[in-house]
């Protein structure tokens, strides 16, 4: 070591940092030196957030010769301590570089977080439908995967239960034949066991029962009592031929079943349909593929586990080497992980934080209140501007367009008086006159609804009463109004007023056109949150309680849509000979309510 003549705080820090670095370096060297020559399972990397962390082997009971074959050799690592705010924890494990042996299959769990052992999620096996054209050139494939453990898997063949699997595929264009592959996956590291029985393919025929085009119960073959026996229609494939086996006994549904027992993490095993037994198909066929199975699938050689931000606490990360069926075999590693609580869980810190938060909160509260007042003021101004704009538009329509329309109706009528009665000119001038009057009426309704001076229930009542009595007196129908004189100052905005008016008009027109009534009663009532408008006639009524006079169009569906869109409802009551009653209920907002 270099001797510093005058130690200073800075130098001391440098010394510590150097010593720390040296420590990690020496630990890594030591770990490498201590590595067991036949180890196939070690921690390879530990990452927290985006930071690689050092870890150290503490105890390796595999340094000596193995005591017995069924004993696990546990490799313990020194506990690592992490603050819990650094994010995701990722652990890489598996065979170290230069290893001579690979774990056939690995399982892991974070004790304290995971509820049990986990298979490697990326491990899978699959049943593949391979479609070929007439020249046996591959066209397309459909793949059905299995992962983890099947529902009925118990850890051994004998007690496991088969589950049914049902998949569908469509024969692609140009396909002429179909071959089936059952293999241990496109990735060599996939390992585990898979038992398949009672495989069938049916064509789905619209309007008829599915047509069976292929079925296999795996009872036809030679030497089926032995794992290396041969099925009549199937052949082994892949680099790990001994992984494709014949299974005899439970849980096979007959005496035998097809199975993959894959423990080679560097190659794959497969059963495939012999070429002479491929299934003829034609493009566009819809196929239903069914089979029964049980499985336990994982991954060997190396793996990776990853956890999101963990709550503070003590955990233990464990990885086990297992055989193809998932039973412990060989090696295990253990790494304790301590997640320390963040500083803000400290009591004194909390007390100080609460105090300062209270102080800051008071300030923030006040400025929020000020901001809210400002916002309300702006909103009020905005609403006022909109109101003024609406008033201006209404006024312009009232003054300018209205005057022009009056001019058209008056001058066209004057002209028609000069034209010879009964002549074409007279008729056309009268039509112009009528059209402009009609337009004035329509505009009157629009202007009435738009002008904010009419934004009250009271004005609405006055308008409705004049409108109804005019309309009904022309039709020769008596009009009886029950509109309270002392309606409260409930605001009724343009949209609602328009909706209500249109519905009201529809109800009145309905009476005039279809009811044959001699009297109509119109009532308006209000509650705190709604107004009700009732139009009741003494006409012939409807046969059913849902429409107007049968066979005649009416505006009721329109009315209902319009009112329901505004949050209200329309009730319709009618009996033959007893008239019709339409009740329109519309929610309103009191003036004291906050602006919406």
């Amino acid at each position, binding site marked *: 070591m270099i001797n510093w003549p005058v130690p200073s705080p800075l130098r001391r820090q440098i010394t510590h940092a150097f010593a720390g670095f040296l420590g990690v370096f020496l630990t890594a060297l030591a770990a490498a030196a201590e590595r067991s020559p036949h180890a196939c399972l070690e921690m390879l990397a530990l990452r927290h957030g985006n930071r690689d962390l050092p870890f150290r082997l503490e105890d390796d009971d595999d340094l000596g010769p193995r005591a017995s074959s069924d004993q696990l050799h546990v490799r313990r690592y020194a506990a690592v301590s992490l603050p819990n705010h650094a994010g995701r924890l990722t652990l890489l494990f598996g065979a170290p570089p230069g290893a001579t042996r690979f774990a056939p299959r690995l399982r892991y769990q974070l004790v304290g977080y995971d509820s049990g052992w986990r298979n490697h999620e990326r491990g899978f096996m699959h049943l593949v439908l391979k479609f070929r054209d007439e020249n046996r050139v591959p066209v397309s494939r459909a793949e059905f995967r299995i992962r983890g453990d099947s529902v009925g898997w118990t850890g051994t063949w004998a007690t496991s239960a088969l589950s049914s699997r049902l998949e569908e595929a469509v024969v692609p264009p140009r396909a002429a034949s179909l071959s089936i592959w059952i293999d241990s996956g496109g990735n060599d590291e996939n390992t585990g066991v898979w038992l398949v029985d009672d495989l069938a393919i049916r064509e789905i025929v619209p309007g008829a029962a599915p047509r069976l085009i292929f079925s296999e119960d795996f009872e036809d073959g030679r030497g089926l009592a032995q794992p290396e026996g041969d099925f009549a229609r199937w052949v082994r494939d892949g680099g790990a031929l001994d992984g494709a086996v014949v299974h005899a006994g439970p849980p096979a549904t007959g005496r035998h079943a097809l199975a993959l027992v894959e423990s080679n993490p560097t190659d794959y095993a497969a059963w495939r349909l012999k070429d002479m037994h491929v299934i003829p198909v034609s493009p566009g066929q819809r196929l239903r593929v069914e089979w029964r199975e049980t499985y336990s699938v994982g991954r060997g050689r190396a793996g990776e586990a990853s956890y999101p931000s963990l709550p503070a606490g003590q955990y233990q990360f464990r990885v086990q080497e297992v055989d193809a069926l998932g039973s412990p075999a060989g090696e295990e590693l253990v790494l304790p992980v301590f997640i320390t609580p963040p500083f803000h869980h400290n009591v004194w810190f909390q007390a100080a934080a609460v105090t300062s938060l209270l102080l800051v909160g008071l300030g923030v509260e006040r400025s929020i209140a000020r901001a809210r007042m400002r916002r309300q003021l702006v909103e009020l101004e905005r609403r006022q501007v909109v109101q003024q704009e609406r008033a201006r538009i209404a006024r312009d329509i009232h003054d300018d367009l209205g005057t022009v329309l009056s001019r058209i109706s*008056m001058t066209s009528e004057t002209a028609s008086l000069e034209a010879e009665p009964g002549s074409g000119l007279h008729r056309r001038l009268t039509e112009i006159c009528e059209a402009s009057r009609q337009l004035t009426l329509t505009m009157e309704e629009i202007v009435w609804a738009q002008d904010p001076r009419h934004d009250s229930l009271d004005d609405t009542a006055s308008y409705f009463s004049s409108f109804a009595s005019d309309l009904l007196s022309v039709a020769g129908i008596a009009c009886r109004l029950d509109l309270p004189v002392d309606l409260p100052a409930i605001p009724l905005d343009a949209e609602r007023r328009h909706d209500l008016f249109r519905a009201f008009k529809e109800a009145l027109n309905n009476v005039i056109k279809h009811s044959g009534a001699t009297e109509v009663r119109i009532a308006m009532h209000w509650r705190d949150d709604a107004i009700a408008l009732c139009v009741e006639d003494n006409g012939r009524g409807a046969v059913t309680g849902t429409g107007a006079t049968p066979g005649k169009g009416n505006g009721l569906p329109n009315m209902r849509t319009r009112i329901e869109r505004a949050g209200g409802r329309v009730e319709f009551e009618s009996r033959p000979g007893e008239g019709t009653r339409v009740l329109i209920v519309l929610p309103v907002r009191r003036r004291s309510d906050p602006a919406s």
Partner: protein
Amino acid sequence: MSQTVRLSILEDDSALRRALSEWIASDPRFRVVSEHANAEDAISSLPSIRPDVVVSDINLPGQSGIDCVRHLKPLMPGTQFMMLTVYDDSERIFQALAAGATGYLVKRASRQELLTAIADIHRGESPMSSGIARKIVQSFQRVEPIVSPTNKLTPRERQVLELLARGFLYKEIAAQLQLSIPTVNCYIRSIYEKLQVHSRSQAVAKLLGV
């Protein structure tokens, strides 16, 4: 009507004014004695012309038709003011009636309707829609400040007004109250007159801060 009815027209749109003038002049019962394009001109000229009926637009540049009636009616109580309006706006019509008008008509009315309305108003008959009646009921229901008993509505007038507000037509009111139609008309004219006095006293009360 032995004598010709003398009419003045107050309308700012020249085409409308001409059409109104032609329509009215085409009826031998009526004679147009003056035409005015704005309220200021009417206010200065009409007191000396003293027509029987003034047909006035409500919406005018400068002072409105309502202002004009409010100014002229006290000066010429024998003249009837009939307001013309593009839209059936009960609030504005009510204001005009409270200012002293005794009739109103929408501009989309036909020539025949206009002539009938003028003849009616001159004869002492006034239209009153249910919406207007409703507003008058409201107006009389408001706190009455210093109204003399003579300006209060009589029970009969109140009945007529309430029936109107409930949608009854004149003839239905006559049948209901066992009156003649001219009597009903009489009540209505009386209601209009009391409304004017009432509105004026309300306005005064407002000015005095009562």
